[in-house]
């Protein structure tokens, strides 16, 4: 028994020694012999294990790729959000650039900072001060219109009141010069807090809804022609003056970049800068007013349009035409028969007139649409920024532009 055990032990030791010897031999094999050996093993008996290892590697790669994809998607979403913000900022800056290109000189560009503190909701802190040429009582404008007025000036910054300030006043007029008044903040609450009032308009001067109100240039602070707001409603009149509610051209929360007009630039007038806006608003208001008056006249039974009077209808046709029931009830006599025939003719003429009127209305609508489109195109054209100067140095916008030199 012990001998058998010793034999087994010797056999195990011999086997172990053989395995170690073979392992050392395999380990010492040169690459040119080792690679074919391992390759042969991988392509024969180890195929299932190779396949398992390969699939596991693919699974891990897919898992890692999934994480990477999620990261990329998050990154893309973030970039898209940033792109939207950049697009908005780009658009805003382009509009400011366009305004600067139109103003050409006599303005100081500034960033507007909203403090948000209690008591400061009516003011803006501007990033330009006396060193840049800002002076007190200078008008502050944005591409869409009037923002407010500089109140306090420090060397490097200034504070401006915006139109929501209780002390804000500006002399204003309708874009078509049909009425004058004073614009101030509307003393309302909630969403009405961000509206304006046009006060002191004489009772005889009625302003239609949609009329653009611009600065009148009276008073000496604000130059003429800066858009202030649009009439949206009529308020209760007090005495001999009318009051109108205006939707402001510029919302304070949207103001991030502004232009401060210098006194000499304000004195020089800025009406051409917003001329296209004023003209477009004026023509739209005219069209709207014409349409309103035509509708009102039609509702009252009057001729549809005073420009196209119904020539077939006599001035007193409504009085001369008898009622159908009255004609039927009256005894037939030569006069009544003639009157009935005349009434039939008048009805026919009136039908023709209505038909012609609807055709005219259709033409008028299409013309208005075309006019609106052309106005919109003009606005877009005007909103485009002026081309940047060739040199990259910042030009001095506070000095008048020299007159163009004539070629010799």
């Amino acid at each position, binding site marked *: 028994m012990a001998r058998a055990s010793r034999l087994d032990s010797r056999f195990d030791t011999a086997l172990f020694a053989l395995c170690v010897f*073979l*392992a050392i031999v395999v380990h010492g094999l040169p690459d040119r012999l080792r690679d074919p*050996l391992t390759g042969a093993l991988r392509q024969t008996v*180890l195929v299932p*294990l190779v396949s398992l*290892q390969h699939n*596991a590697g693919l699974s891990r790669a897919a898992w890692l790729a999934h994480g990477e994809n999620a990261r990329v998607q998050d990154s893309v979403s973030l970039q898209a959000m940033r792109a939207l913000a950049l697009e908005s900022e780009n658009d805003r800056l382009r509009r400011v650039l366009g305004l600067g290109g139109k103003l050409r000189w006599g303005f100081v560009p500034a960033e507007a900072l909203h403090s948000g503190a209690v008591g400061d909701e009516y003011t803006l802190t501007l990033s330009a001060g006396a060193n840049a040429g800002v002076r007190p009582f200078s008008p502050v404008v944005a591409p869409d219109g009037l923002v407010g007025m500089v109140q306090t000036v420090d060397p490097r910054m200034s504070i401006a009141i915006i139109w929501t300030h209780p002390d804000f006043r500006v002399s204003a007029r309708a874009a078509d010069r049909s009425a004058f008044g004073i614009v101030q903040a509307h003393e309302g609450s909630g969403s009405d807090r961000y509206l304006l009032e046009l006060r002191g308009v004489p009772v005889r001067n009625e302003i239609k809804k949609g009329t653009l109100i611009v600065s009148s240039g009276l008073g000496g602070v604000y130059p003429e022609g800066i858009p202030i707001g649009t009439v949206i409603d009529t308020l209760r009149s007090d005495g001999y003056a009318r009051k109108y509610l205006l939707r402001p051209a510029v919302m304070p929360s949207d103001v991030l970049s502004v232009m401060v007009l210098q006194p000499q630039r304000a004195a020089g007038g800025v009406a051409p800068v917003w001329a296209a806006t004023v003209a477009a608003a004026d023509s739209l208001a005219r069209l709207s007013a014409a349409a309103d008056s035509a509708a009102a006249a039609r509702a009252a039974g009057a001729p549809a349009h005073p420009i196209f009077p119904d020539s077939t209808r006599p001035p007193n046709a409504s009085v001369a035409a008898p009622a159908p029931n009255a004609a039927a009830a009256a005894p037939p006599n030569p006069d009544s028969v003639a009157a009935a025939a005349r009434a039939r003719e008048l009805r026919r003429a009136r039908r023709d007139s209505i038909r012609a009127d609807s055709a005219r209305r259709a033409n008028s609508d299409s013309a208005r649409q075309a006019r609106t489109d052309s106005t919109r195109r003009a606005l877009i054209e005007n909103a485009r920024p002026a081309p940047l100067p060739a040199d990259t140095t910042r030009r001095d916008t506070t000095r008048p532009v020299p007159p163009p030199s004539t070629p010799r």
Partner: protein
Amino acid sequence: MTWRSLRPILAFVILVVLHYTLRPVLEWRTSIDFLLIALLLAAVRMRPGAAAVLGFAMGLVADSLSAGAFGATLAMTIVGFAASWLRAVVFAENLVLHAAFFFAGKWLYDIIFLLVERRVKGLDLVFQLLIWSPLTAMVTALAGLLVLIIMRPMLDTQPA
């Protein structure tokens, strides 16, 4: 061949499959060596000579499927023989002892493998042998214990 004698072989195959599926997916720095667990569990059920042959075969497989030199063949041969010989000398059905057995087997394997491969040298070799190898051996020992607990019905060859 009865079902009772087939169960350890099945457990062995499962561990080998786990080595080539779970390990590449996890890809931990201190990865679990299921192949060594399989070798140790098989070696304690064999004679030392057969365990050395099994270690040699498994090392050859491991070396063929990796890019290194043939260091695993020698290491697994020695570890297999030593595990079987230790089983013949001292062994008990104790989980802590099994854990120590797995730990020592894996560490011994790493020492032989790293010394034979001669790929890591100097301070890195010291760090690898004294820090990373013990950590890997510990993780493998824990995994071995888990395997023992889960596969106990399959590994128990004694009649009930």
